[in-house]
């Protein structure tokens, strides 16, 4: 798979008077990834975000958006091509939800009909009823307003979305819901998202990669697991001791899925002495890839035929999107070291084992 770079920061500094707010940041953000910037207050994460759409001009260094130097682009045009969502939402109180959603299109002077169609489409995308288009922002709850904020950012169909603590001002329950919606939305739209937060759990949940900032510097960069395994003392202190548990709560089991496990169709025979990778069980699949049950190797007779006759029913499984924490809970509850994983249409994906969860950190 070729990596397509969406945003690139090369040695970027931002200096206010004497304070170096952003200090020599080097960063490449790939197309279609969710990149989370996290750090304590005043670490420069929001400033870094705003450098990308040039709401704040950088002092030195180079910022490339889709390969083009932002200082050579028209700032207004650049901002119109990048979606922008902020914590305090900033809906225009004098405009209806529809007019808010289509604000960028109005700025671009697109035809009225196109604007209306786009508003209809987007209000549905973010899961709000169509009647809401006629309402005013003050008539909506905080969570609904931020949904409009997201819809508005998507109106111009930008390739890049900048989100500055977008769920910081809503209650925890709504926040989790909005996070889940963003994740499923992202599966469909595949935008490049740069997301700023100070909530570690949110970072692990949303981010494909996470960058930790401190005093204007990027001190750690990597996948959530790489961050958790960091030996850097600041990073360890910042993410806290509960980080691993937090991460288990937000990392889906598909990241620790054992796929290389013995499977067989009805009537196949086991020629080796043991099943592959030392498994003691062989998983019996039908033609649709649905797992019917498993056959313990010790149950095999002399013909070593794998059939549903010597099969043991499968324990309750889980979906690949379930969190590792829940999967471990399930194992503990059932008293077994593994549980099967199946997709929504019941197709067998593999199993998640205690061991594979324990290996997460290595």
């Amino acid at each position, binding site marked *: 798979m070729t990596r397509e770079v969406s945003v690139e920061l090369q040695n970027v500094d931002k200096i206010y008077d004497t304070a170096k707010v952003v200090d020599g940041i080097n960063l490449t953000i790939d197309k279609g990834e969710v990149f989370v910037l996290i750090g304590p207050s005043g670490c420069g994460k929001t400033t870094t975000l705003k450098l990308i*759409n040039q*709401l704040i001009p950088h002092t030195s260094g180079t910022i490339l958006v889709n390969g083009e130097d932002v200082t050579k682009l028209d700032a*207004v*045009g*650049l*901002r*119109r*091509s990048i979606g*922008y969502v*902020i*914590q*305090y*939402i*900033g*809906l*225009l*109180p*004098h*405009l*209806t939800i529809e007019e808010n959603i289509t*604000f*960028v299109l*109005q*700025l671009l002077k697109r035809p009225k009909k196109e604007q209306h169609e786009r508003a209809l489409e987007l209000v549905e995308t973010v899961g709000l009823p169509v009647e809401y288009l006629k309402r*005013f922002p003050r008539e909506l709850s905080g969570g609904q307003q931020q949904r409009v*904020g997201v819809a*508005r*950012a998507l109106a111009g169909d930008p390739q890049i979305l*900048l989100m500055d603590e977008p769920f910081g001002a809503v209650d925890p329950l709504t926040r989790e819901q909005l996070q889940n919606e963003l994740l499923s939305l992202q599966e469909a739209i595949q935008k490049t998202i740069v997301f700023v937060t100070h909530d570690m759990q949110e970072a692990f949940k949303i981010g494909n990669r996470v960058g930790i900032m401190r005093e204007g510097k990027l001190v750690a960069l990597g996948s959530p697991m790489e961050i958790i395994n960091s030996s850097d003392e600041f990073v360890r202190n910042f993410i806290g001791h509960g980080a691993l548990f937090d991460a288990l709560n937000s990392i889906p089991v598909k990241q620790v899925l054992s796929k290389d496990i013995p499977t067989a169709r009805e009537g196949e025979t086991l020629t080796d002495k043991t099943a592959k990778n030392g498994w003691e069980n062989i998983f019996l699949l039908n033609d649709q890839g649905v797992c019917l049950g498993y056959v313990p190797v010790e149950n095999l007779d002399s013909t070593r035929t794998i059939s549903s006759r010597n099969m043991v029913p499968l324990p309750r499984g889980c979906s690949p999107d379930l969190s590792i924490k829940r999967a471990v809970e399930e194992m503990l509850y059932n008293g077994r070291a593994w549980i099967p994983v199946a997709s929504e249409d019941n197709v067998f994906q593999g199993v998640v084992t205690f061991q594979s969860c324990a290996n997460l950190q290595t």
Partner: protein
Amino acid sequence: MEAIIEFFQYFWEIRANVLVMAGRHAWMSLAGVFLGTLTAVPMGIFVSRKPKLSSYTIDIAGMLYTIPSLAVLGFFLPFLGLGWAPAIAALIIYSWLPVLRNTCTGITGVDASIIEAAKGMGATPFQMLVRVELPLAMPIIMAAIRTVTVLTVGITTMASLVGAGGMGELIFQGISMMDNGMILAGTIPVSLMALFFDQVLGLLERKLQNITGVA
């Protein structure tokens, strides 16, 4: 009772004169407010961009406001002569402070997150002004225009002292003749006029609020 009937009889006799004077009074007031607003709103927008300048400008406009209206009228006499010109010039200056100040506070008072969001979405400075700042500042600007209109209708009374006419003619003549009836015949229409303009502008204000959706 008799006095009241007598007053109405007197008023009826001079009704044609009152109508002419009221008409002149009204157009001078409105011209003053209109031209004052027309100059003060752009000034307010301009100074709202510059926090330091805005405090100086509002101070200066405030100082102008403390000068007695008669003195302002007198000040313009050497330049503009007698008649409606010095009167309207004075009225313009009197409209400046409230409209300038409210335009400035209205614009600077727009929620920073709204400005940031609009800027982040790529609004040009002009689009920001027309689509975001002015609509949101409109109720505050309108409130100033209302206040100014009522005040101006009152101040226009002084215009008769520089030969500009208006209801002041009747009032000041009444004062010099110690004729209460004449004073009232001048004062009551002025008050009614102020009330009327205030109501009309109030209606306009509510209409604008409905359009802009800002309460």
